[in-house]
């Protein structure tokens, strides 16, 4: 079949479509952020408002909240396209599925991950993070949230054909998030002691690179299983 668009055009058009759809229905962007805010405000209520304690717990709280709020939007990556049939059309088009997957995952990250990164200084203030740790939190979120979107897309691809995929999706994906959680929180912890945390960042970056290479293939084969 003749290809009408270059790969770049394809990427941009898929990406634009997803982001545009999200902006037309703003609750999709705002709800995960609100959820993140609420989860974070639950912790001081649950464990007590002492600033020292909160600063000690903050890396874990921020990251667990980030994992959970990413989970909220995951189901949406492919679900709407699957239901109106456009996902099937994308799969039978003469373009590589993994490229389409990368475009959709990037769109998902710009909708859920990026706002989280941008607003994280505010959340850090709520939890009494000092400026060193705050910087580390922003950087780890910047590297880590695309990773969450990529890994999560595998689970989303596997469960898109199912009626009640939501809970199953979190069962499949959350165990795979554990390394990200460990290294990100340890980077923030190390920075709070004003030590060098480039090691943890390097590992996070390496995981992002591996996921960027391999996850799109896993997602596209998962989609082929779900759609067929």
């Amino acid at each position, binding site marked *: 079949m003749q290809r009408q668009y270059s790969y770049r055009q394809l990427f941009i058009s898929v990406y634009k479509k997803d982001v545009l759809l999200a902006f037309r229905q703003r609750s999709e962007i705002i709800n995960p952020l609100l959820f993140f805010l609420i989860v974070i405000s639950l912790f001081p209520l649950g464990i007590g408002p002492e600033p020292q304690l909160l600063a000690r717990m903050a890396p874990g709280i921020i990251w667990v909240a980030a994992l959970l709020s990413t989970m909220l939007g995951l189901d949406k990556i492919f679900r709407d396209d699957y239901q109106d049939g456009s996902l099937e059309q994308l799969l039978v088009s003469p373009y590589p599925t993994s490229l389409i997957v990368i475009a959709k995952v990037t769109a998902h990250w710009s909708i859920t991950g990026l706002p989280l990164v941008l607003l994280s200084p505010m959340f850090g203030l709520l939890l009494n993070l000092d400026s060193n740790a705050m910087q580390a939190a922003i950087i780890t979120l910047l590297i880590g949230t695309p990773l969450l979107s990529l890994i999560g897309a*595998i689970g989303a691809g*596997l*469960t898109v*054909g*199912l009626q*009640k*995929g939501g809970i*199953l999706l979190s*069962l*499949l994906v*959350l*165990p*795979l998030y*554990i*390394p990200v959680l*460990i*290294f990100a929180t*340890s980077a923030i912890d190390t920075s709070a002691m004003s030590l060098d945390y480039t090691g943890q960042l390097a590992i996070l970056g390496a*995981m992002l690179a591996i996921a960027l290479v*391999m996850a799109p293939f*896993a997602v596209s*084969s*998962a989609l082929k*299983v*779900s759609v*067929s």
Partner: protein
Amino acid sequence: MWKWLHPYAKAQTAYRLCNTLLPYFAVVAVASIIIGWVWGLGFAPADYQQKDSYRIIFIHVPSAILSMGAYSSMAIAAFIALVWQLRNAELAVIAIAPVGAAMTLIALITGAAWGKPMWGAWWVWDARLTSELILLFLYLGVISLYNAFEDKGSAGRASCILALVGAINLPIIHFSVEWWNTLHQGATITKFDGGAIDASMFWPLMVNILAFAAFVGTVVLMRLKNEILLREKHRPWVKGLITNQTQLENQNVGDKNAV
């Protein structure tokens, strides 16, 4: 080699192979479980420090080894199923997953029972315990993904993909957790000459590992047979198998009635 392997892509041949292998695995499993448990629990000397409570090693270590071994064989089967599109390998993944999950659960429970007298706590957030727990989650993910699909064909392929993704992640998870926290003792059997363990405890442990391996093999073969029959239930050879069996049973009943 391919010519030799090729017939086993057919369900009927694979079913027959399961049937021939099953008795060997079953005999080895039963015999070595009896020998291993009697030897390990009854005759091996007590530990000078941990006294008799160390004896749980004869269940804990083999099940932990097999929990990981089962996952790797499941991942290999998943790889074969996805690359060469062999349906029997898909079925093998489904056959292995619950057995591996059971082994992981046994390892966790015996580990908790061992940890209580030794460390003074049922559960500690130690690296090995945590990665074993995550292994259990990965198994449960594969099983529940398979059960979630109505169409068992795509269910098999989906769980193969998940098993492979898990297999790639498992080392990363393992090392990240290890790096995060460690309390569990290092591996006891690093060298085959026994390493840090005395021969009088080493050999019963080896017999028990063999026993668990054979036991897992037996159960997986039985489950694989069932899966093949379930998946192929509309094929004539399965129908023939069942009617033959019922005929035999009827004959037996008839004989008894005659007597």
